[in-house]
């Protein structure tokens, strides 16, 4: 989870440090401009043209820094660094060298050059910047007229400050960067470990499932090779179960859904009676009392078909709409004359019809000798 990386691949810590550098630069230029304005207003010896030019140069350079700093790598080249130091040195020494101006107004501007150099080139960059600025600071003294005692002590203070600042900033940046790298490494290791754990868990679950289901069934099949009907039923059952598992559905029989309950009833009849039941469902709904009665009735009809039709295939079609749920159970078996059925058959038909009627549904049996049988069962659905 590296929140920190942006599309250019720049780590978040570098982006944050870059913002700090640009912020310092803007503050430094503002500082310089304010001091420049004070000098222009109060110091008679100041050269207005040179002072103004220096303020404009610093402000313009800060703007250029911000513009170029919008790209991650824009400020890191040596030539930019050299130009940056030239501008900073000018703000220190320029007015004195060109116009003999005694009063300085560079404020915090040169310091921002040290910050930038440390960020871009580490301790080396920082020390080079400190060196260049120190040279400008000390070199300037040669152009100051008259008593130089006060400027000298100030200059020495500044030189020490530049060097110490370079070292401290470099050390700070280094600590920040190292912490960030360690944090990102730890996070990626953690994510990798988590992914690996999930993978191995899935593998173990798959292996356990295959062992409990497919391998058991294959063993059973090997022991029952003498009974083709039994082998077929075992294979069908395993196929159904594996398919449900693969598509991520709940194992049939867990209830909850009408379609799942129909499939589960079909599978049970298939297992108990050795027939093949083809199930097609359209729509689905949570199982309520009415739908449960419909499933029970459909199961009766299936058992009937399995027992009496003398064929080994039965088709089930279950459809759920907003107002009603309907199940058709159909076989292409011997059929019968519904008018002249024996008592046993009538009893079962009653158990289907009666069961549904109590839930406001109905059943209809269509059959003729030799033409197979179809039982249609419907219950109305209450608004949820």
């Amino acid at each position, binding site marked *: 989870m590296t929140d920190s990386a942006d599309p250019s691949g720049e780590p978040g810590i570098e982006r944050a440090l870059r913002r700090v550098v640009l912020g310092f630069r803007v503050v430094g230029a503002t500082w310089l401009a304010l001091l420049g304005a004070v000098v222009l207003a109060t110091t008679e010896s100041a050269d207005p043209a040179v002072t103004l030019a220096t303020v404009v140069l610093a402000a313009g350079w800060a703007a250029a820094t911000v513009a170029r700093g919008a790209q991650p790598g824009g400020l890191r080249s040596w030539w930019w660094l050299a130009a940056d130091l030239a501008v900073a040195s000018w703000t220190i020494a320029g007015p004195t060298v060109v116009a003999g101006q005694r009063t300085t107004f560079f404020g915090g501007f040169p310091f921002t050059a040290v910050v930038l150099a440390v960020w871009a080139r580490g301790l080396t960059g920082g020390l080079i910047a400190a060196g260049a600025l120190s040279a400008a600071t000390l070199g300037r003294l040669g152009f100051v007229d008259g008593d130089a005692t006060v400027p000298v002590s100030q200059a020495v203070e500044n030189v020490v400050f530049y060097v110490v600042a370079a070292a401290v900033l470099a050390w700070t940046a280094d600590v920040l960067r190292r912490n960030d790298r360690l944090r990102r490494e730890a996070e990626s290791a953690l994510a990798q470990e988590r992914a690996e754990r999930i993978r191995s868990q899935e593998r173990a679950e798959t292996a356990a499932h295959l062992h409990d289901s497919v391998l058991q069934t294959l063993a059973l099949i090997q022991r029952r090779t003498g009974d083709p009907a039994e082998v077929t039923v075992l294979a069908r059952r395993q196929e159904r179960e594996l*398919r449900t598992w693969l*598509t991520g559905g709940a194992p049939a029989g867990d209830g909850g859904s009408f379609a799942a309950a129909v499939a589960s009833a079909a599978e049970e009849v298939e297992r108990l009676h050795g027939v093949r039941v*083809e199930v*097609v*469902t*359209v*729509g*689905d709904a949570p199982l309520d009392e009415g739908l449960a009665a419909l499933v029970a009735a459909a199961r009766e009809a299936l058992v009937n078909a399995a027992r009496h039709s003398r064929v080994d295939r039965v*088709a089930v*079609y279950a*459809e759920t*709409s907003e107002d009603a749920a309907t199940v*058709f159970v*159909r076989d*292409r078996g011997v059929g019968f004359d519904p008018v002249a059925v024996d008592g046993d058959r009538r009893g079962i038909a009653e158990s289907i019809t009666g069961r549904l009627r109590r839930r406001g549904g109905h059943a209809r049996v269509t059959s003729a000798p030799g033409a197979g049988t*179809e039982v249609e069962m419907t219950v109305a659905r209450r608004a949820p």
Partner: protein
Amino acid sequence: MRARTKVFLVDDHTLFRAGIRSEIADRVWICGEAADVASAVEGIRASRPEVVLLDVHLPDGGGRAVIDGVRDAEPGVRFLALSASDAAEDVIDIIRAGARGYVTKTLSADELVDAVRRVADGDAVFSPKLAGFVLDAFAAIPVVQVDSELAQLTAREREVLQHVARGYTYREISERLFISTKTVETHVSAVLRKLQLTNRHQLSRWAAERNIT
């Protein structure tokens, strides 16, 4: 006696291809077989079969990729999708790509030969399973969003499809509904065309809902 239908077999399971071959090779002419998309496209273009028996699930893009690779070059070739898969989205997808029907691999050899011949004759072959998928797909398109009659089934088409889903043959349906077998076939073909032309957006909504449940 009609000439034997020229059939090309595409399935990545060698065992299954051998099984099909041994079951139906005496009644149809199996002119070639392939186990992956590339060799299937090449083989079908070279041998120009009447019907391609096409597994829905193939490595490298599935049966759909085979249809896409052949359709423009050989528009006369018809496809019958064949699968052990019950995933409704995959089946509907291959029908929309242009297959003329879908049957499950548990079909008996006689039924399969019959289905191949009907596809060769230009009919659509809906197994009960496919009829169920199609009813499900059209039922899920909300009426308010229906942009044309293409997105809806007529009452008659629904009735015919329901009968197919209930396990009736076309002949039985024609007897029950007092229409000719040809009319039953016309209805089924019309459903197939609607399925192929219906706004993809409406059907993908259905597919998304199925994935949630």
